[in-house]
């Protein structure tokens, strides 16, 4: 009884606050864009929005990147902003299921987003409804030391044999072929995604992350066997389980390692560390099974309207604004990433151009990333297994059986 009283008191109080703020045309935006480039991009975005909509005042709360993952659960239920950023695919599923995100199909229809954002419509759709607007994405692939490859006379590998040959040449010359830091696990999932996408294709990969295929399946084994070739030959840097992804950049900058399977966000710190565009290059992860349609990993960042938002009308205006071609062009130029609107322009940065060309030609499909395609629990179990596999490849059977057991439990 006291609880009910308390709750209704809080509700009364908050509705009073809401009434006051709605009257002022105030839009509250929560984001986790605390890194320098995203922060600058959002600063600009909000200024432009306010300039175009003088009747709306934006209040913007920036959260630290890691803390946001916990805070979002609290503020969506208790003290909802009008806009929050998040990620596409399975990552938004818990909030959609709990009814915490508002469907925004009307924003898509009224602004013709079904055409201009067509490429990402699937990743924003759950139960036939759209739950937000995507504003940026970036490619994954192999970042490499172009100068080292040239010195050793290695051509950019386009298939698995060439890739292994390139690794072998690098290793003979005392350079670790591939750098990686698996302390926080997800980097290993990037390697898995690519080897699996190239070995078994997009449909198999998505079915696996949806839990429809046993981890002990022979096709998963085929993927792991390909990976094992790299692990057992010692093509990854030593002690990678002790490093974060940032720490693993160091050997590449020093020229002790030549390749990194990574997302485009690695370019900024590599440049800051002194690598020029002549030294740093990018190539698509090489083909493994010939002939299967090419699929890529390209995680998409999105914005959503919480169901408990108080100013949904203006929030929808903001969504429509951010979906516009010119706005996406501008924000992605600052972010150093790719716009999703098909009428937007990609900045002339060489990595973005390469990524854009690669993703436009991906006829197999665009995966989000292992930890966004698979449910959180499966992602965690999987990534831990990948890390263990990369250090102890001989435990493959135990690891796959463990993952299969987890699958049986998680996808009920």
């Amino acid at each position, binding site marked *: 009884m006291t609880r009910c009283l308390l709750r209704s008191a809080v509700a009364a109080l908050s509705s009073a606050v809401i009434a006051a703020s709605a009257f002022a045309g105030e839009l509250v935006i929560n984001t986790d864009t605390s890194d320098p480039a995203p922060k600058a991009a959002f600063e600009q975005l909000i200024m432009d929005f306010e300039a175009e909509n003088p009747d709306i005042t934006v209040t913007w709360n920036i959260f630290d990147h*890691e803390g946001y*993952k*916990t805070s979002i*659960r609290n503020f*969506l*239920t208790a003290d909802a902003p009008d806009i929050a950023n998040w990620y596409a695919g399975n990552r938004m599923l*818990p*909030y959609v*299921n*709990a009814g*915490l995100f508002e469907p925004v199909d009307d924003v898509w229809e009224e602004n013709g987003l079904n055409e201009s954002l067509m490429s990402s419509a699937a990743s924003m759709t759950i139960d036939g409804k759209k739950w937000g607007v995507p504003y940026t994405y970036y490619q994954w692939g192999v970042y490499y030391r172009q100068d080292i490859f040239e010195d050793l006379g290695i051509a950019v590998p386009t298939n698995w044999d060439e890739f292994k040959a390139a690794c072998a040449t690098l290793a003979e010359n005392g350079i670790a072929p591939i750098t990686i830091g*698996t*302390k*926080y*696990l997800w980097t290993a999932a990037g390697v898995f995604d690519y080897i699996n996408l190239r070995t078994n294709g997009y449909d198999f990969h998505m079915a696996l992350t949806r839990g429809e295929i046993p981890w002990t399946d022979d096709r998963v084994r085929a993927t792991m066997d390909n990976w094992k070739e790299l692990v057992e030959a010692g093509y990854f840097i*030593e*002690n*990678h*389980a*002790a490093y974060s992804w940032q720490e693993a950049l160091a050997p590449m900058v020093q020229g002790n390692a030549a390749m990194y399977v990574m997302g485009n966000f690695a370019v900024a710190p590599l440049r800051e560390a002194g690598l020029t565009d002549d030294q740093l290059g990018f190539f698509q992860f090489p083909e493994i099974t010939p002939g299967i349609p090419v699929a890529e990993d390209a995680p998409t960042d999105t914005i959503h309207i919480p169901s408990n938002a108080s100013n949904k009308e203006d929030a929808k205006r903001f969504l429509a604004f951010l979906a516009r071609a010119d706005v996406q062009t501008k924000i992605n130029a600052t972010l150093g990433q790719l716009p999703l609107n098909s009428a937007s322009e990609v900045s002339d940065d060489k990595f973005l151009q390469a990524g854009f060309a690669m993703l436009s030609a991906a006829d197999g499909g665009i995966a989000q990333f292992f*930890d966004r395609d698979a449910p*959180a*629990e499966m*992602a*965690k179990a999987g990534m*831990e*297994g990948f*890390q*263990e596999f990369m*250090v102890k490849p001989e435990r493959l059977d135990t690891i796959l059986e*463990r993952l299969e057991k987890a699958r049986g*439990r998680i996808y009920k």
Partner: protein
Amino acid sequence: MTTSALSQRKLAPWLFLAPGILFFLFYVIFPIFESMQISLYAWDGLGDKTYVGFDNYVELVDDEAFYTSLKNNVIWLVLYMLAIPAGLFIALFLNQTVTGIRLYKSLFFFPFVISQVVVGLVFSWFYDPSFGLLNVGLKSLGLDPIAVLADERFVTYGIIAAGLWPQTAYCMILYLTGLNAVDPEQIEAGRLDNARGWKMLWYVVLPQLKPATFIAIVVTVIGALRSFDLVSIMTDGGPWGSSRVLAFYMYEQAFSEYGFRMGYGAAIAVVLFLIMLVYISGFLFKMYKDEQER
């Protein structure tokens, strides 16, 4: 005596205790029972709770990661006790009058003053396989570097060593204050009876340090059981979960990025609580007995 004075006497203590009791009820007792209740549900913290009976516990019994954490907790409890003798010997060593001894004492106490997070970071760098002091040292001796924090065999011991650094300082300060209270006359008497060295320490000094030892054991056990921060900073439970302890595993299942299984996390918390209960009841029993003796 009037009735009002009587009731005042009876009431007053409870009134004074009331705030404490209320807070204790709300922040300690009530959450314990709520955890027990949540552990019977499957709940992601957002949607509806589903009652699953003892399923969470059944899963726990069959969970490798749980046993790894449990084993690590035992290792922590045993090895953390090293802080007590280490602290004692540093205290004995520092318990002398030399110029500047206060400075030395505070320097030895320094690791306890800095945050556990900083201790974790410092030791992570110390263990770093490429530039860490440990491996630079090993290299100069012609040995191969050891990636302590990336090797499932060493990782827990590596973190415990980091934890022992501040914990030893803590025990040292407890013993230093204890040594101030040692009766010089008894030492003198012991000297006359020809006790020296180990015998003096064991039969004359240590019995007088009993209260300090008791507190040292208490804080060390507590320190070992709440070893969450170092694990989180130094390895994040890795490699592949081999350095988890129960507290960390509970956090991971309930609150981390890939967790939000409140029911399962609560089940781990209940198990951790039961383990602590053994220790706490022992502690309470000892306190009770000491009270009786007085």
